[in-house]
């Protein structure tokens, strides 16, 4: 039996990443954008863990993925707070409405 190599894992993480990007670009809902970010972070995290197994990166990759998870959690908390604030101020969650900084 042949174990699964790194490529399939990397491919999965690529799919996660691309889906996250697409999610960020298409979703007008602020929460949706946030979800895209989570997807992107997860893809990156999966990459780290993959390399920790298949290369001499070793435990470092797992440590980094742990940091990524923690930071993602923190980011999610702050981003949600921002989203709620935005909602309070604009009465909507549509990010296209928050374009006061346009040129």
């Amino acid at each position, binding site marked *: 039996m042949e174990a699964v190599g790194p490529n399939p894992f990397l491919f999965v993480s690529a799919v996660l990443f691309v889906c996250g990007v697409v999610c960020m*670009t298409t979703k007008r809902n602020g929460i949706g954008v946030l979800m895209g970010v989570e997807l992107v972070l997860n893809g990156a995290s999966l990459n780290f863990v993959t390399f920790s197994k298949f290369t001499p990166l070793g435990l470092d990759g797992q440590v980094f993925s742990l940091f990524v998870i923690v930071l993602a959690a923190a980011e999610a908390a702050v981003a949600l707070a921002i989203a709620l604030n935005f909602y309070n101020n604009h009465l909507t969650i549509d990010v296209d409405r928050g374009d006061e900084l346009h040129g």
Partner: protein
Amino acid sequence: MEHLGEKLAALLAIAWLLPLLGFTIEVFGGYWGARNCKKAAYIAIGCIAAGFVCSSTALYLWGSETGWVALESASHGGHDEHSSATDDAHTAGDHGGHDHAATVVEHHHKQTVFSGCFYRLAKFGSLNLSLDWYIDSLTLTMFVMVTLIATCIHIFAVGYMHEELTDDYVDHQVHTHDGCHFHRPGRFYRFFSYLSLFCFAMLGLVLAGNIFQVFIFWELVGICSYLLIGFYVERHSASTAANKAFIVNRVGDFGFIIGLMILWTSFGTFSFADQHAADGKVQPGLFSMVRGSDGKLEATDGIVVLKTQQDEHGHWQVPPDSSQRKTIAYTLLIVAGLGVFCGCVGKSAQFPLQTWLPDAMEGPTPVSALVHSATMVAAGVYLAGRFYPMFTPEVLLTIAYIGCITAFVAATIAIVATDIKKVLAYSTISQLGYMMLALGVGGWGAGLFHLITHAFFKSLMFLCSGSVIAGCHHEQEMPKMGGLLRKMPITALTMLIGVVAIAGLAIPGTSIALSGYHSKDAILATALAYTKLNSVHFLLFLIPLLTAGITAFYMFRLWFYTFLGKPRDQHLHEHVHESPLVMTVPLLVLSVFAAGCAIGGEEGVLFRMLTHSQPGHVAQGFNGLAAQTVSLPSHDAIHKVHSTAGSAALLAAFCGMTIAYLVYGLGLVNPEEIKKQARAVHAFLANKWGFDDLYDTLFVKPAHVVAKFAAAFDKLVFDEILHTVVRFAVVISKWDRKFDEGVIDGFVNLVGNSTYSLGIGLRGVQTGRIRQYVTFIAVSVVTLFVLLFAFYPKG
């Protein structure tokens, strides 16, 4: 006795410097703040009066210390003693220890001439430029005369100038553009500061011990004269007159400078007297070099050998060693003398430079009295007298003729002048001509005698005219006066004293006369003796005699015209008033001196005082050997013809007076008819012999033409060049501007515009939409990858 010279110098220096102190205080004392304050006048009077006291003290000291040697009867046989007057100065060091109670003969050997140095300004090689002093009886007499007259005139001026004691002086002779009279602050203090400065300069001139110092103060009195003539500077006539006086004097000073240059080159010294150096050596002065101790001027083959060596008796001799001899060409000596005399011509308003003096009457009347009659203009005569030993007979002849012509010309013009001050001005010129004539014909004493007497009576008459003018509210034209005798008796009577004095009247057969008679008598006697020796020059007696008659005529004409007869301008006459005491008292004082200063004539105090300083060679006369050389009369010869000349002069004066009385006093002949009869002559005289026109044509107009030509040249050539350059520069700058605007600005604008438009363009990218930004990021990453794959080297 030894320190007499220093004492005299100190006293006279105080008298000399006090006016300078006064001037400094008046200028810097802040009197411009208080225009109605008389302090400046009091300071000026105090200074000059103190100067008078010092001068008088010095004169008394000099007299008593020398045992009044000057006043003793100069026996005509005693030429030897007289001739050694200057010699005394050199030898007195040996006799200085004599007892005061010495014999008469020994008195003659007492030192009466002193010289020394105050301060050395600079030394160029052998030439010393220093402030020297030279004191003899002439210096002392001049000091007393100047300070006395100046004091009187200062006091008079306090009254005369009182209108200036205001913050708002209205000058009725100046009109502004809007037709009003000119208003300005009064200049009382300024007037007195000028007067003080003038006194300082005049006294310095008299005290000067070398010809260069004389020149310095010469110019200083010139500038004072300029300032005072132009005192009413807003009046066009006054400023023009001031310029005229200054420029005409420059002509004379040009000759003066030439004389100075010759003296420096040939003699190497400017000093009158011998100079005692600190090491005991004695440097000969100008007089010693030329005349030596015996007063002889010898020329061999046109060369004068200077007497630069002292023999064992202290007499100056020609050095026996020919290699040490200093020589000067005789012609050069003549030129030097003429040059210095040229300065005198300018300063003393002699023909042909006499034209400035009448115009100088634009100044305030006290100025005319002090500067332009009594002192400054007499400085020329004084210098001619002081410099007398340097003049060769040829120069003296020139002086005589110049003086003669001046006297006659000025006297004739005075006949037709109607302005009271102008008459006096021409009379001054005429009298100065007399003095010059006297010097020229060998009457050294007579000339300076007349200088002193004239100073008194002419300043008196000017002050009287000032009093008349002030009384008539600044009316100077005699035809508008008349009958003023009752209105202003003091002025009229003092004026009469002056008139009699200048006319030279005397009671026939006696010597009871006013000062003018004596001095004019002496001059005419000298002139007569001269013409007897040199019959070619007979005019030198006849013209002055005629002039004496004319003088008497026009002076009495003035007096009759002004003070007698019926008032010709009733309105004016009603407002006439006698002047206040401050003006009449100086008149009285001066009238006393004008009447009595020459008491005794040539046996009197004044004449003897003066002739004591007479250069040694004058008394014996001079016998011209060659045909072209003139002879000078000796005192004996003069004395012999004295009574003849006196009678002639008296006769002429009486004739003049009688005619004046007939015409103007009694009115037997109407002057207007005479004027009509001799219209051409009158016009000629009224036109001042055409001198002004002549100079106008000869000098002023050519100068204007040259100036116009120069102006045109400037305008046409220089201006054109400048304009071309400027136009060129304008063209260049236009191009430069285009370059700037087009290229430099264009570039900068291009950068700015492109940046701006770029910003505008990129502004559209900044939509503010987060999703779009994310899209951009993704696209950028993709693009980067594509580029990486496309261009990254494989392998």
